């Protein structure tokens, strides 16, 4: 039983990271109908920026609440800025172009970010100091949780609830939902679509930045090409939940994390990915637009 609970904790931890990243995919998709393939690389960039911010401002070995807050806020701000820049330069000129052109542009942007990381930080693995977060460890009758894990679960839940409230309870959130449903109609209603898209990129990138920092802090080793791994998993999570749907991304992320942990723990390590994608494909066969995705009736 404690093994099962431990796997549950493992799965939820990685799952909430996926969910944070998946939100970035799903929000952009919801409004722009674009798979932002560069998003995973933004996540990777955030880990590198975070490491540099930390070592430049505080130096290795310093661990304080202020350091943590500064690193998170500063990095999230930088990545949000890069996200907005990305939209301006690579996506906005293509808004009226065929859909796949924007996809290629996104793939190109991913390549640019990835190689910028490599040129700036080098091709070798960079390593986060182990003491940014306290190395505290709790043992609940055989189920072990670290301080970092608790932080990941806690902060990502807070962020997700906050996002949910923002989208559903605020005026800006309503405007975002309206734009997602019909951009032209939203424009007619006086909604500044460019501004909505900017907000989307700020929020999505900042959430991705938080995930990137957690990946750095939790797993320690970061490489310039790691964005692909997290990006793909998060993208799959977003699709599973129904891309464009915000609760769907959260659900998809957690599901993917849990499913992966359970498959690895109980069935097979070496076939874990195969099982994951079979699950995805089976879900899509029965629910062609994901678990929470709505069926869109084509207007004829």
């Amino acid at each position, binding site marked *: 039983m404690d093994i099962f609970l431990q796997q549950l904790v493992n799965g939820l931890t990685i799952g909430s990271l996926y969910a944070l990243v998946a939100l970035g995919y799903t929000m952009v*998709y919801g409004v722009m109908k674009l*798979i932002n393939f560069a998003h995973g690389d933004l996540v990777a960039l955030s880990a590198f920026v975070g490491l540099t911010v930390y070592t430049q401002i505080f130096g290795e070995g310093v661990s304080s609440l202020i350091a943590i807050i500064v690193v998170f806020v500063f990095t999230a701000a930088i990545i949000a800025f890069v996200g907005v820049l990305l939209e301006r*330069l*690579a996506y906005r*000129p*293509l808004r009226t*172009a*065929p*859909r*796949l*052109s*924007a*996809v*290629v*542009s996104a*793939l*190109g*942007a*991913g*390549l*640019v*970010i*990835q*190689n*910028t990381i*490599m*040129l700036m930080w080098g*091709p070798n693995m960079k390593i986060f100091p182990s003491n940014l977060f306290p190395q505290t460890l709790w043992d609940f009758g055989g189920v072990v949780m670290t301080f970092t894990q608790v932080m990941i679960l806690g902060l990502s839940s807070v962020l997700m609830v906050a996002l949910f409230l923002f989208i559903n309870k605020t005026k800006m959130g309503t405007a975002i939902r309206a734009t997602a449903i019909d951009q032209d109609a939203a424009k007619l209603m006086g909604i500044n679509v460019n501004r909505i898209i900017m907000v989307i990129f700020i929020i999505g990138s900042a959430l991705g930045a938080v995930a990137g920092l957690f990946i750095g802090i939790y797993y320690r080793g970061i490489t310039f090409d790691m964005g692909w791994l997290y990006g*793909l998993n998060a*993208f*799959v999570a977003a*699709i599973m939940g129904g*891309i464009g749907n915000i609760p769907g991304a959260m659900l998809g992320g957690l599901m993917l994390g849990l499913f992966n942990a359970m498959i690895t723990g109980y069935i097979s390590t*070496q*076939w874990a*990915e*195969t099982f994951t*994608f*079979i699950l*995805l*494909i089976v879900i*899509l*066969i029965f629910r*062609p*637009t*994901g678990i929470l995705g709505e069926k869109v009736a*084509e207007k*004829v």
Partner: protein
Amino acid sequence: MSNINFNKNSVMAIGVLLVMGIFPLFVDSAWLAIGTTFLVFAVVAFSQDIILGRAGVFHMGHAMFFGLGAYTTAVLNVHFGWPILATWAPAVLVPLVVALLLAGPIIHLRGDYLLVATIGFNIIFIQVLQNNIFGITGGPNGIFGIDVVRVFGVELFEQTHMYYMAFILLGITLFIMKNLDQSKFGRAMFYINKDDVAAQSMGISIRYYKLYAFALGAGIAGAAGSMFAVQYSAVSPEAFDVISSIMFFTIVLVGGSASLPGVLLGTFVMFVLPEVFREFETARYLVFGLAMILTMILRPRGIWPVKFGNIPAFLKKDVK
């Protein structure tokens, strides 16, 4: 315009084929190897184009069919001792059948959902190879020591031989592409791509023609895979991973969907140029990414977009 249009295309095609045909006379074997791979990749790109550019299916797992062809040749040759020539038919048929079986249940999915499903198939394929299924795929390192082609006791092992075999394969592919374009099958794919509701209402079965595109594309990719395996005398999983699929996907869109010169140009830009700029080392992919963005912004339909209006001359007599 009128029927000069046909001749223009033919002149161009003959010109390109001529240049590619005499290319080996001027270069050393390293460039010949790059040239051969260019030809093979061009064939794969064309086969991807049938599915993506013509039928309009967002398919991002094409390297899988390429790999299936390569592994079919490798396995049959290395483990079962088949001569390479005998493996050609299975190398086309295996990917073709697999494509039908896999695409069947997911063909109704809409754009991006289908895209991620095809990525999924590709990833599963790689995992199957890496796990050395049935002990025949050789795990992560793949299969080495694939034989050369033997025709009437003559061994075709030199790079020049490889080049011309790939050249002939490209020629056959172009021939098929031309035939496809001028048949109801090629046209049906375009109709589905441009407006699926209208196409259906004209009596075109979306499912049938999308699967037709998948089968044909997979078969051609398999032939290219077989050639690829022979050229390198080795196959390994990483050559057929999702990154490669993304490359073929991008080639088609950067060059120009459904455009023969476009896809050829796309292959050149995406595969040969990086080899030319190898000297720039690490920065080259950065430049490359920027170029992808710029190309799409400046030419959203690709460098050399497709031109429709390929109709018999007698219908053009009233065209001013």
